[in-house]
């Protein structure tokens, strides 16, 4: 009558889990949420089979594995740690750009955009392009990178070093070698979203193995990319930037989220072939970091001009933040001159003029905007302010305040339907703005009557 522990557990799990109490070997592994909850075993293997450690002796299957790795250019540099190098001539093109572009670029703007101090050594030779493939998207202690790629310039080549963790037990060795070979203190780590993902994850791993983390600078390309392309790209991911900006089309690329599943398949079944696309994907990512960094540097140093109005505006705002007002103004000008200039470009341009004290240009722009965009409220509000306080034309001020209020009431429900980042007044904001306008109108009327009385 007494049942084994696993029998009991299985029955219990089945009774609370509902479906999935039967083996489901056909699962494609996309239902990642179910894996954790145990209800859907992807396939059942006998425990004896599982208990066999994979790398205990050089058995036949090991020799086979070695052969497979060798075919992909990997060599085993420690038990369970595989390493390969991919070398590219720096004059080679990757998409529309060459690796060498970065070496020739002026990096000042890029470093500024990444909020790095001037103290960072500026040579691209000092950069380490870093990207990982991990067992999940979390940043907790149980998520780890199984594949690390470190790209660096070595003389006239761009070299990608890939480290693959074939056995979890070997992680400490992998990290020791990789940190020793590529991450001396003081290097600059170039990533895309690495500041909040790849690097913290690596730090976790070092802590888990009680290893010292190197002191490095972080150049995360996500932030400047977001500034420039948030308006044009629906999602600023490395893949989106590659195809839209860098002219790189990937063929047969593996969706990144599939990588963990393929790795889990590999560790349980030892089949390497399904991981090959992951290796390639990872290597391509690192190469793109180089061309993206080069392209960003060129844009930010003014060597390459951008095309879209929103890019010009974004540049203008960056220069503005760096207190390069003239450069900023030029960018805002460019933005409004673009054929695809929208409400937003005109608006940003006008605000910049206002900040510079160029009231005439600002007023001119607002008048044009009030005319062109008959639903648009903010230019009318600005005009009302200017006419009231600067120019002292209370009649005009009152007219624009009234117009703003009318527009507010008329268009508030669907304000900003034109898109293009037009500010949209939502819910409660409506009332606040309307009442502010009423307040303004009352004040102007008081001034008017005082004026006429005197």
């Amino acid at each position, binding site marked *: *009558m*007494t*049942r084994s*522990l*696993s029998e*009991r*557990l*299985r*029955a*219990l*799990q089945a*009774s*609370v889990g509902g479906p999935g109490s039967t083996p489901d070997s056909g699962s494609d592994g996309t239902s*990642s*949420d179910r*894996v*954790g*909850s*145990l209800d859907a*075993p*992807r*396939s*059942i*293997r*006998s*425990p004896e089979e*599982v*208990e066999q*450690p*994979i*790398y*205990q002796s050089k058995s036949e299957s090991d020799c086979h594995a070695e052969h497979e790795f060798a075919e992909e250019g990997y060599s085993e540099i420690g*038990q*369970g740690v595989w390493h390969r190098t991919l070398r590219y001539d720096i004059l080679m093109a990757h998409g529309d750009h060459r690796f060498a572009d970065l070496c020739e670029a002026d990096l000042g703007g890029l470093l500024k955009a990444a909020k790095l101090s001037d103290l960072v050594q500026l040579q691209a030779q000092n950069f380490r392009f870093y990207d990982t493939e991990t*067992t*999940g*998207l*979390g*940043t*907790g*202690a*149980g*998520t780890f990178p199984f594949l690390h790629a470190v790209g660096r310039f070595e003389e006239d080549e761009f070299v990608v070093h890939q480290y693959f963790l074939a*056995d*979890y*037990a*070997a992680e400490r060795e992998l990290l020791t070698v990789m940190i020793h070979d590529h991450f001396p203190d003081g290097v600059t780590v170039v990533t895309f979203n690495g500041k909040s993902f790849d690097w*913290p994850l690596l*730090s*976790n791993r070092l*802590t*888990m193995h009680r290893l010292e983390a190197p002191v490095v600078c972080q150049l995360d390309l996500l932030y400047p990319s977001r500034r420039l392309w948030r308006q044009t790209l629906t999602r600023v991911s490395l893949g989106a930037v590659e195809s839209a900006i860098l002219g790189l089309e990937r063929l047969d690329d593996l969706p990144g989220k599939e990588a*963990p*599943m393929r790795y*889990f398949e590999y*560790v*349980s079944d030892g089949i390497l072939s399904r991981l090959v696309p992951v290796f390639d994907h990872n290597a391509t990512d690192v190469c793109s970091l180089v061309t993206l960094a080069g392209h960003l540097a060129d844009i930010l140093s003014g060597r390459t001009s951008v095309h879209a109005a929103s890019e010009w505006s974004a540049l203008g705002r960056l220069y503005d933040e760096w207190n390069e007002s003239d450069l900023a103004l030029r960018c805002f000008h460019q933005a409004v001159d673009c054929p695809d200039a929208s409400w937003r470009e005109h608006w940003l341009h006008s605000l910049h003029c206002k900040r510079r004290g160029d009231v005439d240009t600002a007023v001119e722009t607002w008048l044009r905007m009030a005319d062109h965009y008959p639903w648009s409220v903010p230019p009318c509000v600005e005009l009302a302010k200017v006419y009231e306080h600067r120019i002292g034309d209370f009649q005009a001020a009152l007219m624009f305040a009234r117009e703003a209020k009318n527009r507010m009431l008329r268009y508030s429900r669907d304000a900003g339907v034109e898109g293009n980042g037009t500010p949209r007044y939502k819910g409660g904001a409506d009332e606040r703005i309307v009442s502010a306008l009423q307040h303004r109108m009352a004040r102007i009327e008081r001034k008017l009557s005082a004026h006429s009385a005197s």
Partner: protein
Amino acid sequence: MELSLLLDEWRRTPAFIEQVTAWDIAPARIGRFRETPGWVHEDLVSVLEKKGIRQLYSHQAEAVEAVHANKDVMVVTPTASGKTLCYNLPVLDAISKDSSTRALYIFPTKALSQDQVAELHEISNGLRTQVQSYTYDGDTPMHARTRIREAGHIVVTNPDMLHAALLPHHTKWLRLFENLKYIVIDEAHIYRGVFGSHVANVIRRLLRICAFYGRHPQFILSSATVANPGDLGRELIGRDVEVVDESGAPEGERHTVLYNPPIFAPQLGLRKSSLMEARRIGGRLLKEGVSTIHFVKTRTQVELLSSYLKSDLPERLRTRVVGYRGGYLPHERRSIEQRLRTGDIQGVVSTNALELGVDIGSLQASVTVGYPGTIASIRQQSGRAGRRKGMSLALFIANASALDQYVVGHPDVILHHSPEAARVYPENLLILTDHLKCAAYELPFSRDESFGVETTSELLDYLAEYRVLHQGGDGRYFWMSDALPSHGVSLRSAAQDNVVIVDQTDARAEIIGEMDRFSALTMLHEEAIYLHQSKVFQVERLDLDNGKAFVRAVNVDYYTDAELAVRLRVLDSLEDKDDGLAKHHTGEVMVNAMATLFKKIKFDTHENLGWGKIHLPEAELHTVGYWISWPASALPFDNEAWETALSGAAHALRHAASLHCMCAVPDIHMAVEVRDLLTAKPTLYLYDAYPGGVGLAERVFRTSREVLATAREMVVNCPCESGCPSCIGPQAQSSESKTEGQPKEWVARLLLSAVGSEVGDAHKSTGTEGSAPVHSTEGM
């Protein structure tokens, strides 16, 4: 009028004193003091002196000395006896001596954490060492988190945060874990049952991580009074604890009065409403200027009673009476707490929200309206009145329920010997496995590592077999999934999601309750009548997929009783014993239940008004049970009498068990068989409502004599004549039985027959020996 005069008056009033079942007077007690130990850092000594603390109470001294002697300590002393100093003193001392020291405080609720930090700041401000103490919970802003991880000497959090945020990200808390010296767990008695079993496993994970960083932190626990503080401590933290339970704090004279509202319909055993009695008595207290806190069971009652009290009071006092409950905004609650401390508020009506240590100063009287679910709660609520000096009153007004009636008839359980044992059962397979997964995510398991149980490696293999873990080349098991295991595990909910009960009577739907899925089958099927706080609702729709039952208030004079086709199968009888005429067992059971149809039954006459069909899937529950079987010849009952007696006994036992196991009644289910499928004997089953069991039924097996005695008393002492819904549960009417006597007698006889004059032998059968030897005890 002074409280003492008012009490004198009540004592002379026959209408009052006749309803009082006990009036206990604990004389005033002076404090017992001891010198502050010499090892305490001088800065801390002078800060304490500035606060007027020149000496410690004896229990404080005892506790801090035990901590100093490297023991794990559990402090069990009444509310307001200065418990917090028992842990703040050693912790602040250690930080003063070595500023790298870290401590982790675990509180069950956010409100308590905030209170604690405020109190810590008060002391630590005077220290020369800058002591940083922070709460870390869901409300902590992101930008503050990094600083807390790095610089917090004392991190105050709750078990849920520990489980979901700290432990899975322990590498980011390096500084804390590398220097962790003390773990403080306040209100430890809250961690019992399912929640406690989860928390015990979270603590296993915590200790595992500490060990990884080379630390072996010491525990300082505090708890309300329970029957088994030492056991609770050990089960929670996996180590023996030194129990400190002799309070040295001074106490004023204290009157504890147990009041049972008068009966107005003797045949039915109906009593006056406890809430209305509270309105009368509490109103009088307030009118006489006695500061009073009322504890009621629900949020609605808070509003009701506070509005009654206000309307009864003279104008000038009305603004000085307030309600306090969950659902009020935090700043509202803070302001009420503040006004209570300063005495600006004279009367407050609260749910148990004010029961735990939130600092509200001391009031003169507490009125507990209805049994709040545990005796520890009653005691904590009474502790809100009367702190150091002056006379105080703790009044308990009973409801009509069997448990209320038992408690009001047994003043001893409140005053002296609580039968309540807070139990945790961290070995529940589902809970254990969930936390094993979380633990594997946090740190890989080595082959020979034990996670609280000997069977760890078997469980690891199981998880590896299901490809949740993978064994690396060095034999260690590591997490192999892209999911974060702690996300799927909530410490506070049952294994299966509960069904929440949504009241859509008003335009704004409101959640009024929660029920496990298994019970929902019979209680929340469509058209079922659901009784909630004596309001009648009808279920309009049961959405099992999304775990919601939609109800609407109705005005009908019937209730529903669903017929549940239950198949209960014993999977494994783990232990049995003979006692009295019966055989008692504990073991694993599987329950299959299918609700088939329901009857509509008229409230007073119990007439059958009709029936309807239920269309719901079968439910299955694997759990641990306790069952008693009798030979059919044990009592001279016919079939009907057996049936009535068994179900009545099961009803009473279930309530008695909830008292002894410190759990809610719905945590234990029951079933009866006049002819059991397996043994053909009359059998009564109690089983844990949680899959895998949480040790409740097992506890009943171990203490069956006490539980049976309590159950019998509940039945015998009920004022009804022949057995009422309160004591023996709803009975099938118009019994055909030819057996002599009344159902109430049958139940009492049956319960008595399962207790022998001598202790029966316990026969333990271990897993390898197979089933238990059968003893021929029939006809004894």
